[in-house]
């Protein structure tokens, strides 16, 4: 390997007296570290890292303070019973529990079950429609929070692979 520091090679650097070929190696690494670390600092307060990083629905619910939600028919899930394309599964959620302030959506069998948590303030109805990825046949679990209590409803979504509709 030819040396990087030869008088002929320095000509592109002659206008940058501080630029040294010797220290240019570590610089990209420092730059990468800065890119990776910055977003975490910016978002730490508003994104439930533990909940979204949980690998089971039970662990995710613990981070929401909803370990033992009460089953309720007032939490309504509208989703297909069979989804041929697991990449885009429409799920519509309405909470008829009075005083609902938040809705969390979990897909039990996904690698990271918690897919979203929605906080509703004055003026919004406790309703959301979203498209989720469902990796394999799974229960979808919706937990609504109202006046400090948690209510849950579930529905199974079958995912067919290969689009044969079975």
């Amino acid at each position: 390997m030819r040396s990087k520091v030869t008088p002929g090679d320095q000509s592109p650097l002659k206008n940058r007296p501080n630029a040294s070929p010797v220290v240019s190696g570590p610089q990209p690494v420092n730059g990468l570290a800065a890119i990776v670390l910055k977003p975490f600092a910016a978002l730490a307060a508003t994104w439930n890292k533990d909940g979204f990083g949980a690998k089971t629905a039970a662990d995710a619910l613990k981070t929401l303070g909803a370990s033992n939600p009460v089953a309720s028919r007032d939490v309504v899930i509208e989703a297909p019973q069979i989804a041929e394309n697991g990449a885009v599964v429409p799920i519509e959620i309405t909470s008829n529990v009075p005083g609902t302030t938040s809705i969390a959506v979990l897909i039990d069998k996904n690698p990271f079950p918690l897919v979203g948590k929605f906080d509703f303030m004055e003026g919004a109805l406790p309703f959301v429609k979203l498209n989720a990825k469902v990796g394999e046949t799974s229960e979808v679990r919706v937990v609504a929070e109202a006046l400090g209590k948690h209510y849950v409803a579930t529905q199974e979504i079958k995912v067919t692979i290969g689009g044969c509709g079975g």
Partner: protein
Amino acid sequence: MAGPMKMRATLSGGVTDVRVLMTHPMETGQRKDPDGKLVPLHFIQNVTLKVNGKTVVESQISQGISRNPVFTFRIKGGAKGDRIEVSWIDNHGETNQTETAVA
């Protein structure tokens, strides 16, 4: 990098329906590109809905939301001409926002 957003807000029967589409790859960090290398995690983390400048829905979402996410939210009441704003921020710190008036 951040692609276009589309939004529609319609008032009907005393309820405003807000339907918003965001352009985003929502990479799970588990998918491999054609060369067999993992595509890094890249997804929207927060979505905020404001009506006339006041926050009414704050969402935290994961990579489990589909690519190019579409959400529908509902607002009680509302009036034609109310200003609806939706903004998002992803795990790389990229952001985008759009606004429309209730029709």
